[in-house]
Protein backbone atom coordinates (compact mmCIF):
# COMPACT_ATOMS: atom_id res chain seq x y z
CA UNK A 1 0.00 0.00 0.00
CA UNK A 2 1.46 3.37 -1.07
CA UNK A 3 -0.02 6.64 0.12
CA UNK A 4 0.46 9.44 -2.39
CA UNK A 5 0.87 13.01 -1.22
CA UNK A 6 -2.12 15.20 -1.96
CA UNK A 7 -3.96 18.26 -0.70
CA UNK A 8 -7.54 19.48 -0.80
CA UNK A 9 -8.62 22.85 -2.11
CA UNK A 10 -12.02 24.34 -2.97
CA UNK A 11 -15.33 22.50 -3.00
CA UNK A 12 -16.58 21.35 -6.41
CA UNK A 13 -19.86 19.72 -5.44
CA UNK A 14 -21.81 20.08 -2.23
CA UNK A 15 -24.90 18.12 -1.23
CA UNK A 16 -26.42 19.85 1.74
CA UNK A 17 -29.21 18.03 3.66
CA UNK A 18 -30.78 16.68 0.47
CA UNK A 19 -34.08 14.88 1.00
CA UNK A 20 -36.82 13.87 -1.40
CA UNK A 21 -40.22 12.24 -1.13
CA UNK A 22 -41.91 10.72 -4.18
CA UNK A 23 -45.50 9.45 -4.15
CA UNK A 24 -45.64 9.90 -0.37
CA UNK A 25 -42.60 7.69 0.08
CA UNK A 26 -39.40 9.11 1.52
CA UNK A 27 -36.65 8.09 -0.91
CA UNK A 28 -33.63 10.05 0.32
CA UNK A 29 -33.10 11.70 3.70
CA UNK A 30 -30.59 14.33 4.81
CA UNK A 31 -27.82 13.47 2.36
CA UNK A 32 -24.65 15.42 3.05
CA UNK A 33 -21.51 15.07 0.95
CA UNK A 34 -18.86 17.38 -0.38
CA UNK A 35 -16.42 16.81 -3.22
CA UNK A 36 -13.24 18.87 -2.88
CA UNK A 37 -10.68 19.66 -5.57
CA UNK A 38 -7.83 17.30 -4.81
CA UNK A 39 -4.36 18.32 -5.93
CA UNK A 40 -1.23 16.21 -6.35
CA UNK A 41 2.25 17.59 -6.93
CA UNK A 42 3.48 17.89 -10.53
CA UNK A 43 0.38 16.48 -12.14
CA UNK A 44 -3.21 17.22 -13.13
CA UNK A 45 -5.38 15.17 -10.85
CA UNK A 46 -9.13 15.32 -11.19
CA UNK A 47 -11.50 13.62 -8.79
CA UNK A 48 -13.31 10.29 -8.90
CA UNK A 49 -15.93 9.90 -6.24
CA UNK A 50 -18.33 7.03 -5.71
CA UNK A 51 -21.81 6.68 -4.31
CA UNK A 52 -22.61 3.06 -3.45
CA UNK A 53 -26.06 1.76 -2.86
CA UNK A 54 -28.10 -1.39 -3.19
CA UNK A 55 -30.53 -1.74 -6.10
CA UNK A 56 -33.71 0.24 -5.58
CA UNK A 57 -32.29 2.41 -2.81
CA UNK A 58 -32.71 5.65 -4.78
CA UNK A 59 -29.40 6.00 -6.61
CA UNK A 60 -31.03 7.12 -9.86
CA UNK A 61 -33.08 9.72 -7.99
CA UNK A 62 -29.87 10.98 -6.40
CA UNK A 63 -28.31 11.16 -9.88
CA UNK A 64 -31.21 13.22 -11.22
CA UNK A 65 -30.96 15.55 -8.22
CA UNK A 66 -27.20 16.01 -8.68
CA UNK A 67 -27.72 16.64 -12.41
CA UNK A 68 -30.29 19.33 -11.62
CA UNK A 69 -33.06 17.43 -13.36
CA UNK A 70 -35.23 17.23 -10.28
CA UNK A 71 -35.26 19.58 -7.33
CA UNK A 72 -34.88 17.99 -3.90
CA UNK A 73 -37.79 18.37 -1.48
CA UNK A 74 -35.42 19.99 0.99
CA UNK A 75 -31.72 20.78 0.87
CA UNK A 76 -29.45 22.11 -1.84
CA UNK A 77 -26.95 20.97 -4.44
CA UNK A 78 -24.20 23.43 -5.29
CA UNK A 79 -21.63 22.93 -8.03
CA UNK A 80 -18.45 24.45 -9.39
CA UNK A 81 -15.85 26.64 -7.76
CA UNK A 82 -18.50 29.36 -7.44
CA UNK A 83 -20.77 26.84 -5.65
CA UNK A 84 -23.87 27.80 -7.64
CA UNK A 85 -27.18 25.97 -7.27
CA UNK A 86 -27.23 23.19 -9.85
CA UNK A 87 -29.33 23.57 -13.00
CA UNK A 88 -29.63 21.11 -15.92
CA UNK A 89 -26.56 21.26 -18.12
CA UNK A 90 -24.09 22.18 -15.36
CA UNK A 91 -23.35 18.54 -14.58
CA UNK A 92 -22.83 16.10 -17.43
CA UNK A 93 -24.99 13.04 -16.84
CA UNK A 94 -24.36 9.76 -18.64
CA UNK A 95 -27.41 7.62 -18.05
CA UNK A 96 -27.33 3.85 -17.81
CA UNK A 97 -28.11 3.12 -21.46
CA UNK A 98 -25.79 5.83 -22.83
CA UNK A 99 -28.43 7.78 -24.75
CA UNK A 100 -27.39 9.65 -27.89
CA UNK A 101 -29.54 11.38 -30.49
CA UNK A 102 -30.32 8.51 -32.85
CA UNK A 103 -31.19 10.91 -35.68
CA UNK A 104 -27.74 12.51 -35.66
CA UNK A 105 -24.42 11.05 -36.73
CA UNK A 106 -21.75 10.63 -34.07
CA UNK A 107 -20.03 13.81 -35.25
CA UNK A 108 -23.28 15.79 -35.10
CA UNK A 109 -24.10 14.35 -31.67
CA UNK A 110 -20.87 15.79 -30.34
CA UNK A 111 -21.22 19.01 -32.30
CA UNK A 112 -24.66 19.78 -30.89
CA UNK A 113 -23.12 19.49 -27.41
CA UNK A 114 -19.97 21.48 -28.23
CA UNK A 115 -21.94 24.34 -29.77
CA UNK A 116 -23.36 25.10 -26.35
CA UNK A 117 -20.03 26.43 -25.15
CA UNK A 118 -18.12 27.27 -28.32
CA UNK A 119 -18.55 29.23 -31.53
CA UNK A 120 -19.26 26.98 -34.56
CA UNK A 121 -15.69 26.84 -35.91
CA UNK A 122 -14.27 26.32 -32.45
CA UNK A 123 -16.88 23.68 -31.68
CA UNK A 124 -15.83 21.69 -34.76
CA UNK A 125 -12.22 21.74 -33.62
CA UNK A 126 -13.20 20.53 -30.17
CA UNK A 127 -15.30 17.75 -31.63
CA UNK A 128 -12.44 16.59 -33.84
CA UNK A 129 -10.09 16.59 -30.85
CA UNK A 130 -12.53 14.56 -28.72
CA UNK A 131 -13.19 12.09 -31.53
CA UNK A 132 -9.46 11.47 -31.76
CA UNK A 133 -8.93 11.32 -28.00
CA UNK A 134 -11.74 8.81 -27.48
CA UNK A 135 -10.74 6.67 -30.46
CA UNK A 136 -13.96 7.44 -32.30
CA UNK A 137 -12.62 9.31 -35.33
CA UNK A 138 -13.15 6.42 -37.80
CA UNK A 139 -16.83 6.25 -36.78
CA UNK A 140 -17.63 9.96 -37.04
CA UNK A 141 -20.17 9.50 -39.88
CA UNK A 142 -21.96 6.58 -38.25
CA UNK A 143 -25.38 6.82 -36.63
CA UNK A 144 -25.56 5.67 -32.98
CA UNK A 145 -27.44 2.49 -33.98
CA UNK A 146 -24.29 1.33 -35.78
CA UNK A 147 -21.93 1.86 -32.83
CA UNK A 148 -20.85 -0.94 -30.53
CA UNK A 149 -21.66 -0.76 -26.80
CA UNK A 150 -18.17 0.51 -25.96
CA UNK A 151 -18.15 3.10 -28.73
CA UNK A 152 -21.58 4.29 -27.66
CA UNK A 153 -20.44 4.67 -24.06
CA UNK A 154 -17.34 6.62 -25.06
CA UNK A 155 -19.46 8.81 -27.32
CA UNK A 156 -21.96 9.51 -24.52
CA UNK A 157 -19.15 10.49 -22.14
CA UNK A 158 -17.46 12.66 -24.76
CA UNK A 159 -20.76 14.37 -25.54
CA UNK A 160 -21.37 15.24 -21.89
CA UNK A 161 -17.78 16.38 -21.39
CA UNK A 162 -18.03 18.73 -24.35
CA UNK A 163 -20.73 20.79 -22.73
CA UNK A 164 -20.56 20.26 -18.97
CA UNK A 165 -18.51 22.34 -16.54
CA UNK A 166 -15.95 19.71 -15.47
CA UNK A 167 -18.46 17.56 -13.56
CA UNK A 168 -19.65 14.32 -15.06
CA UNK A 169 -22.02 11.89 -13.44
CA UNK A 170 -22.09 8.23 -14.46
CA UNK A 171 -25.16 6.22 -13.49
CA UNK A 172 -24.24 2.52 -13.17
CA UNK A 173 -21.42 2.71 -15.74
CA UNK A 174 -20.35 -0.92 -15.20
CA UNK A 175 -23.78 -2.50 -15.26
CA UNK A 176 -24.02 -5.41 -17.70
CA UNK A 177 -20.47 -5.01 -19.07
CA UNK A 178 -17.94 -7.80 -19.54
CA UNK A 179 -14.43 -7.64 -18.02
CA UNK A 180 -12.83 -6.12 -21.11
CA UNK A 181 -15.49 -3.45 -21.34
CA UNK A 182 -15.15 -2.62 -17.64
CA UNK A 183 -11.41 -2.14 -18.17
CA UNK A 184 -12.20 0.15 -21.10
CA UNK A 185 -14.59 2.26 -19.01
CA UNK A 186 -12.00 2.45 -16.20
CA UNK A 187 -9.42 3.64 -18.71
CA UNK A 188 -11.80 6.34 -19.97
CA UNK A 189 -12.55 7.53 -16.43
CA UNK A 190 -8.85 7.82 -15.60
CA UNK A 191 -8.29 9.61 -18.91
CA UNK A 192 -11.09 12.09 -18.16
CA UNK A 193 -9.78 12.88 -14.68
CA UNK A 194 -6.29 13.55 -15.95
CA UNK A 195 -7.46 15.86 -18.74
CA UNK A 196 -8.14 18.77 -16.39
CA UNK A 197 -7.42 19.49 -12.74
CA UNK A 198 -11.09 20.25 -12.09
CA UNK A 199 -12.58 17.32 -13.99
CA UNK A 200 -14.63 15.27 -11.57
CA UNK A 201 -16.26 11.93 -12.29
CA UNK A 202 -19.07 10.93 -9.96
CA UNK A 203 -19.84 7.22 -10.15
CA UNK A 204 -23.19 6.09 -8.81
CA UNK A 205 -23.12 2.31 -8.76
CA UNK A 206 -23.75 -0.93 -6.93
CA UNK A 207 -20.47 -2.37 -8.25
CA UNK A 208 -18.35 -2.14 -5.12
CA UNK A 209 -15.02 -3.46 -6.42
CA UNK A 210 -14.74 -1.42 -9.60
CA UNK A 211 -15.97 1.81 -8.06
CA UNK A 212 -13.63 1.46 -5.07
CA UNK A 213 -10.69 0.77 -7.36
CA UNK A 214 -11.25 4.07 -9.16
CA UNK A 215 -12.45 6.41 -6.44
CA UNK A 216 -10.63 8.66 -4.01
CA UNK A 217 -13.79 9.37 -1.99
CA UNK A 218 -16.73 7.08 -1.28
CA UNK A 219 -20.16 7.44 0.23
CA UNK A 220 -22.33 4.49 1.11
CA UNK A 221 -26.09 4.94 0.84
CA UNK A 222 -28.04 2.93 3.36
CA UNK A 223 -30.87 2.94 5.88
CA UNK A 224 -30.58 3.86 9.54
CA UNK A 225 -32.45 2.43 12.50
CA UNK A 226 -34.01 4.46 15.28
CA UNK A 227 -33.46 3.86 18.99
CA UNK A 228 -36.17 1.20 19.02
CA UNK A 229 -34.47 -0.63 16.15
CA UNK A 230 -37.09 0.30 13.55
CA UNK A 231 -35.98 1.27 10.05
CA UNK A 232 -36.03 5.02 9.42
CA UNK A 233 -37.57 5.69 5.99
CA UNK A 234 -35.33 7.21 3.33
CA UNK A 235 -31.79 6.22 2.40
CA UNK A 236 -29.04 8.40 3.78
CA UNK A 237 -25.26 8.56 4.23
CA UNK A 238 -24.31 7.92 7.86
CA UNK A 239 -21.12 9.58 9.17
CA UNK A 240 -19.46 6.16 9.43
CA UNK A 241 -20.25 5.48 5.77
CA UNK A 242 -18.09 8.26 4.36
CA UNK A 243 -14.70 7.03 3.25
CA UNK A 244 -11.63 8.95 2.18
CA UNK A 245 -9.66 6.44 0.12
CA UNK A 246 -6.79 8.89 -0.44
CA UNK A 247 -6.39 9.13 3.30
CA UNK A 248 -6.59 5.34 3.58
CA UNK A 249 -3.83 4.98 1.00
CA UNK A 250 -6.08 3.19 -1.48
CA UNK A 251 -6.42 5.88 -4.14
CA UNK A 252 -4.60 6.29 -7.47
CA UNK A 253 -2.95 2.85 -7.44
CA UNK A 254 -2.72 1.20 -10.83
CA UNK A 255 -3.47 -2.32 -9.65
CA UNK A 256 -5.16 -1.62 -6.35
CA UNK A 257 -7.47 -4.65 -6.63
CA UNK A 258 -4.46 -6.92 -6.02
CA UNK A 259 -3.61 -5.28 -2.69
CA UNK A 260 -4.74 -7.08 0.51
CA UNK A 261 -5.84 -3.79 2.13
CA UNK A 262 -8.17 -3.22 -0.79
CA UNK A 263 -9.71 -6.66 -0.40
CA UNK A 264 -10.18 -6.05 3.34
CA UNK A 265 -11.84 -2.71 2.69
CA UNK A 266 -14.19 -4.18 0.09
CA UNK A 267 -15.13 -6.91 2.57
CA UNK A 268 -15.81 -4.26 5.19
CA UNK A 269 -18.09 -2.38 2.78
CA UNK A 270 -19.96 -5.60 1.99
CA UNK A 271 -20.53 -6.19 5.70
CA UNK A 272 -21.81 -2.65 6.09
CA UNK A 273 -24.22 -3.10 3.19
CA UNK A 274 -25.49 -6.40 4.58
CA UNK A 275 -26.01 -4.78 7.95
CA UNK A 276 -27.83 -1.70 6.69
Amino acid at each position, binding site marked *: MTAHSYAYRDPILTLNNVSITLNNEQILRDINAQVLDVTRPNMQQGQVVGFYGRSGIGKSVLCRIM*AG*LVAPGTGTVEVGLAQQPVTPGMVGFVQQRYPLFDHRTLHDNLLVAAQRKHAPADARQHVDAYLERFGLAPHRRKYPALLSGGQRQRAAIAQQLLCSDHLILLDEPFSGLDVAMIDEVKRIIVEVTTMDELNTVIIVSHDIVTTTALADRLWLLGYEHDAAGALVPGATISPQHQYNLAEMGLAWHENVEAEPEFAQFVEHIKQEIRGS
Partner: protein
Amino acid sequence: MKSLFAPNAQPARLVFTTMVIGQASILLLLWLFYPMQLFPSLGEVVRSLGDLITTQGLIQELWASMTTAIEALAVATVLALLISYLTALPFFRPIAYAASKMRYLTLTGLTFFMALMVSSGHQVKLSVLIFGATVYLVTGMTSVILTTTQEEMDHARTLGMSEWRSFYEVVVLGKLDEMLEVVRQNFAIIWTMITLVETLYQSEGGIGLLLYKQNRYLHLDGVLAIQLVILATGAAQDYVFVLLRRVFFPYSSLGAA
Protein backbone atom coordinates in the same frame (compact mmCIF):
# COMPACT_ATOMS: atom_id res chain seq x y z
CA MET B 1 -37.98 -23.75 -48.04
CA LYS B 2 -37.93 -24.72 -44.40
CA SER B 3 -37.20 -21.14 -43.44
CA LEU B 4 -40.56 -20.04 -44.88
CA PHE B 5 -42.37 -21.84 -42.08
CA ALA B 6 -39.94 -21.23 -39.21
CA PRO B 7 -40.94 -18.49 -36.75
CA ASN B 8 -38.96 -15.22 -37.10
CA ALA B 9 -36.85 -16.77 -39.87
CA GLN B 10 -35.07 -14.59 -42.43
CA PRO B 11 -35.35 -16.47 -45.74
CA ALA B 12 -32.93 -15.66 -48.56
CA ARG B 13 -34.08 -12.83 -50.83
CA LEU B 14 -34.40 -15.14 -53.82
CA VAL B 15 -36.47 -17.68 -51.87
CA PHE B 16 -38.77 -14.97 -50.58
CA THR B 17 -39.25 -13.35 -54.02
CA THR B 18 -39.96 -16.74 -55.58
CA MET B 19 -42.53 -17.41 -52.88
CA VAL B 20 -44.31 -14.07 -53.50
CA ILE B 21 -44.38 -14.64 -57.28
CA GLY B 22 -45.69 -18.15 -56.68
CA GLN B 23 -48.49 -16.97 -54.41
CA ALA B 24 -49.52 -14.23 -56.86
CA SER B 25 -49.47 -16.69 -59.77
CA ILE B 26 -51.68 -19.20 -57.91
CA LEU B 27 -54.18 -16.46 -57.15
CA LEU B 28 -54.18 -15.35 -60.78
CA LEU B 29 -54.54 -18.92 -62.07
CA LEU B 30 -57.42 -19.60 -59.72
CA TRP B 31 -59.11 -16.46 -60.94
CA LEU B 32 -58.47 -17.45 -64.57
CA PHE B 33 -59.63 -21.05 -64.49
CA TYR B 34 -62.12 -21.24 -61.64
CA PRO B 35 -64.28 -18.13 -61.97
CA MET B 36 -67.00 -17.75 -59.37
CA GLN B 37 -70.46 -17.01 -60.61
CA LEU B 38 -70.82 -13.61 -58.97
CA PHE B 39 -67.23 -12.60 -59.37
CA PRO B 40 -66.25 -11.19 -62.78
CA SER B 41 -63.57 -13.09 -64.67
CA LEU B 42 -60.09 -11.73 -65.25
CA GLY B 43 -60.84 -11.14 -68.93
CA GLU B 44 -63.96 -9.14 -68.12
CA VAL B 45 -62.06 -6.97 -65.63
CA VAL B 46 -59.26 -6.29 -68.13
CA ARG B 47 -61.78 -5.42 -70.85
CA SER B 48 -63.64 -3.15 -68.46
CA LEU B 49 -60.41 -1.46 -67.45
CA GLY B 50 -59.63 -0.71 -71.09
CA ASP B 51 -63.12 0.65 -71.58
CA LEU B 52 -62.89 2.84 -68.48
CA ILE B 53 -59.59 4.28 -69.67
CA THR B 54 -60.63 4.95 -73.24
CA THR B 55 -64.24 6.05 -72.90
CA GLN B 56 -64.71 7.25 -69.33
CA GLY B 57 -61.43 9.01 -68.61
CA LEU B 58 -60.28 6.78 -65.76
CA ILE B 59 -56.75 8.21 -65.81
CA GLN B 60 -57.96 11.82 -65.69
CA GLU B 61 -60.40 10.99 -62.89
CA LEU B 62 -57.66 9.17 -60.99
CA TRP B 63 -55.38 12.17 -61.40
CA ALA B 64 -58.11 14.54 -60.16
CA SER B 65 -58.72 12.39 -57.09
CA MET B 66 -55.03 11.90 -56.45
CA THR B 67 -54.21 15.61 -56.54
CA THR B 68 -57.13 16.31 -54.20
CA ALA B 69 -55.95 13.53 -51.88
CA ILE B 70 -52.36 14.81 -51.84
CA GLU B 71 -53.54 18.39 -51.29
CA ALA B 72 -55.73 17.26 -48.38
CA LEU B 73 -52.97 15.11 -46.93
CA ALA B 74 -50.45 17.94 -47.07
CA VAL B 75 -52.76 20.38 -45.25
CA ALA B 76 -53.90 17.70 -42.78
CA THR B 77 -50.29 16.75 -42.01
CA VAL B 78 -49.34 20.35 -41.21
CA LEU B 79 -52.45 20.78 -39.05
CA ALA B 80 -51.99 17.46 -37.26
CA LEU B 81 -48.31 18.13 -36.58
CA LEU B 82 -49.18 21.53 -35.17
CA ILE B 83 -51.93 20.14 -32.92
CA SER B 84 -49.75 17.23 -31.80
CA TYR B 85 -46.70 19.34 -31.05
CA LEU B 86 -48.84 21.78 -29.11
CA THR B 87 -49.59 18.97 -26.64
CA ALA B 88 -46.28 20.00 -25.06
CA LEU B 89 -48.32 22.82 -23.56
CA PRO B 90 -50.98 21.55 -21.14
CA PHE B 91 -53.38 24.25 -22.36
CA PHE B 92 -53.65 22.59 -25.78
CA ARG B 93 -53.91 18.96 -24.62
CA PRO B 94 -57.75 18.96 -24.51
CA ILE B 95 -57.77 20.14 -28.15
CA ALA B 96 -55.59 17.24 -29.25
CA TYR B 97 -57.71 14.84 -27.18
CA ALA B 98 -60.92 16.17 -28.72
CA ALA B 99 -59.44 16.11 -32.24
CA SER B 100 -58.42 12.50 -31.74
CA LYS B 101 -61.91 11.49 -30.59
CA MET B 102 -63.51 13.20 -33.60
CA ARG B 103 -62.45 10.31 -35.79
CA TYR B 104 -65.63 8.61 -34.62
CA LEU B 105 -67.74 11.24 -36.39
CA THR B 106 -69.31 10.19 -39.68
CA LEU B 107 -68.64 12.36 -42.69
CA THR B 108 -72.16 12.37 -44.09
CA GLY B 109 -73.61 14.93 -41.70
CA LEU B 110 -70.37 16.84 -41.63
CA THR B 111 -70.45 17.74 -45.31
CA PHE B 112 -73.57 19.80 -44.71
CA PHE B 113 -71.78 22.03 -42.21
CA MET B 114 -68.76 22.28 -44.46
CA ALA B 115 -71.03 23.33 -47.34
CA LEU B 116 -72.37 26.17 -45.22
CA MET B 117 -68.88 27.37 -44.38
CA VAL B 118 -67.10 27.25 -47.75
CA SER B 119 -68.18 28.32 -51.21
CA SER B 120 -67.21 25.77 -53.88
CA GLY B 121 -67.79 22.03 -54.15
CA HIS B 122 -64.05 21.48 -54.37
CA GLN B 123 -63.56 23.37 -51.11
CA VAL B 124 -66.23 21.26 -49.39
CA LYS B 125 -64.58 18.08 -50.63
CA LEU B 126 -61.18 19.28 -49.54
CA SER B 127 -62.39 20.48 -46.14
CA VAL B 128 -64.07 17.17 -45.38
CA LEU B 129 -60.97 15.23 -46.40
CA ILE B 130 -58.69 17.51 -44.40
CA PHE B 131 -60.91 17.15 -41.36
CA GLY B 132 -61.12 13.37 -41.70
CA ALA B 133 -57.39 12.92 -42.24
CA THR B 134 -56.38 15.38 -39.52
CA VAL B 135 -58.27 13.58 -36.76
CA TYR B 136 -56.68 10.26 -37.71
CA LEU B 137 -53.23 11.80 -38.04
CA VAL B 138 -53.50 13.54 -34.67
CA THR B 139 -54.29 10.18 -33.06
CA GLY B 140 -51.22 8.54 -34.58
CA MET B 141 -48.91 11.50 -34.05
CA THR B 142 -49.82 12.02 -30.40
CA SER B 143 -49.15 8.30 -29.80
CA VAL B 144 -45.70 8.77 -31.31
CA ILE B 145 -45.07 11.77 -29.05
CA LEU B 146 -46.21 9.76 -26.04
CA THR B 147 -43.45 7.22 -26.67
CA THR B 148 -40.90 9.88 -25.65
CA THR B 149 -39.11 8.66 -22.54
CA GLN B 150 -37.84 10.61 -19.57
CA GLU B 151 -34.35 9.33 -20.45
CA GLU B 152 -34.54 10.98 -23.89
CA MET B 153 -35.68 14.32 -22.48
CA ASP B 154 -33.16 14.17 -19.61
CA HIS B 155 -30.40 13.52 -22.12
CA ALA B 156 -31.23 16.74 -23.99
CA ARG B 157 -31.60 18.71 -20.76
CA THR B 158 -28.22 17.57 -19.45
CA LEU B 159 -26.68 19.00 -22.61
CA GLY B 160 -27.91 22.37 -21.42
CA MET B 161 -30.85 22.58 -23.81
CA SER B 162 -33.88 24.60 -22.73
CA GLU B 163 -37.26 22.84 -22.46
CA TRP B 164 -38.31 24.05 -25.93
CA ARG B 165 -34.96 23.17 -27.46
CA SER B 166 -35.10 19.73 -25.81
CA PHE B 167 -38.61 19.23 -27.20
CA TYR B 168 -37.46 20.31 -30.66
CA GLU B 169 -34.43 18.02 -30.59
CA VAL B 170 -36.07 14.92 -29.09
CA VAL B 171 -39.68 15.11 -30.25
CA VAL B 172 -39.67 17.20 -33.42
CA LEU B 173 -36.36 16.23 -35.03
CA GLY B 174 -35.99 12.87 -33.29
CA LYS B 175 -39.40 11.53 -34.26
CA LEU B 176 -39.86 13.04 -37.71
CA ASP B 177 -39.30 9.64 -39.33
CA GLU B 178 -42.04 8.11 -37.21
CA MET B 179 -44.36 10.99 -38.11
CA LEU B 180 -43.78 10.21 -41.79
CA GLU B 181 -44.73 6.62 -41.06
CA VAL B 182 -47.97 7.81 -39.44
CA VAL B 183 -48.71 9.87 -42.56
CA ARG B 184 -48.02 6.85 -44.77
CA GLN B 185 -50.32 4.61 -42.76
CA ASN B 186 -53.14 7.14 -42.73
CA PHE B 187 -52.99 8.02 -46.43
CA ALA B 188 -55.22 5.00 -47.02
CA ILE B 189 -57.95 6.67 -44.92
CA ILE B 190 -58.08 9.52 -47.46
CA TRP B 191 -58.70 7.07 -50.30
CA THR B 192 -61.54 5.50 -48.33
CA MET B 193 -63.05 8.92 -47.67
CA ILE B 194 -62.52 10.35 -51.12
CA THR B 195 -64.78 7.81 -52.77
CA LEU B 196 -67.53 8.74 -50.32
CA VAL B 197 -67.03 12.49 -50.61
CA GLU B 198 -66.94 12.42 -54.42
CA THR B 199 -70.32 10.74 -54.53
CA LEU B 200 -71.74 13.44 -52.29
CA TYR B 201 -70.25 16.25 -54.43
CA GLN B 202 -70.47 14.95 -57.97
CA SER B 203 -69.77 18.20 -59.84
CA GLU B 204 -65.99 17.65 -59.88
CA GLY B 205 -65.97 14.00 -60.85
CA GLY B 206 -63.13 11.86 -59.56
CA ILE B 207 -62.47 8.17 -59.32
CA GLY B 208 -64.92 7.87 -56.43
CA LEU B 209 -67.76 9.05 -58.63
CA LEU B 210 -66.68 6.66 -61.36
CA LEU B 211 -66.72 3.83 -58.85
CA TYR B 212 -70.12 4.90 -57.57
CA LYS B 213 -71.57 4.85 -61.09
CA GLN B 214 -70.15 1.41 -61.86
CA ASN B 215 -71.55 0.11 -58.61
CA ARG B 216 -74.94 1.70 -59.17
CA TYR B 217 -75.38 -0.01 -62.55
CA LEU B 218 -74.00 -3.26 -61.15
CA HIS B 219 -70.97 -3.27 -63.45
CA LEU B 220 -69.01 -5.48 -61.13
CA ASP B 221 -66.17 -5.86 -63.62
CA GLY B 222 -65.82 -2.06 -63.69
CA VAL B 223 -66.01 -1.86 -59.88
CA LEU B 224 -63.25 -4.43 -59.56
CA ALA B 225 -61.12 -2.72 -62.22
CA ILE B 226 -61.35 0.62 -60.38
CA GLN B 227 -60.68 -1.03 -57.03
CA LEU B 228 -57.57 -2.64 -58.48
CA VAL B 229 -56.43 0.71 -59.87
CA ILE B 230 -56.88 2.30 -56.42
CA LEU B 231 -55.03 -0.62 -54.85
CA ALA B 232 -52.11 -0.24 -57.26
CA THR B 233 -52.01 3.54 -56.70
CA GLY B 234 -51.98 3.00 -52.93
CA ALA B 235 -49.18 0.45 -53.21
CA ALA B 236 -47.16 2.88 -55.35
CA GLN B 237 -47.73 5.66 -52.81
CA ASP B 238 -46.63 3.37 -50.01
CA TYR B 239 -43.45 2.65 -51.93
CA VAL B 240 -42.81 6.38 -52.44
CA PHE B 241 -43.17 6.94 -48.69
CA VAL B 242 -40.75 4.11 -47.92
CA LEU B 243 -38.33 5.67 -50.41
CA LEU B 244 -38.71 9.10 -48.81
CA ARG B 245 -38.03 7.61 -45.40
CA ARG B 246 -34.94 5.85 -46.67
CA VAL B 247 -33.60 9.02 -48.31
CA PHE B 248 -34.40 11.59 -45.62
CA PHE B 249 -34.13 9.42 -42.52
CA PRO B 250 -31.43 6.82 -43.23
CA TYR B 251 -31.06 6.07 -39.51
CA SER B 252 -34.68 5.06 -39.25
CA SER B 253 -34.37 1.37 -40.08
CA LEU B 254 -30.92 0.80 -38.54
CA GLY B 255 -32.17 -0.47 -35.20
CA ALA B 256 -35.00 -2.61 -36.59
CA ALA B 257 -34.95 -6.36 -35.92
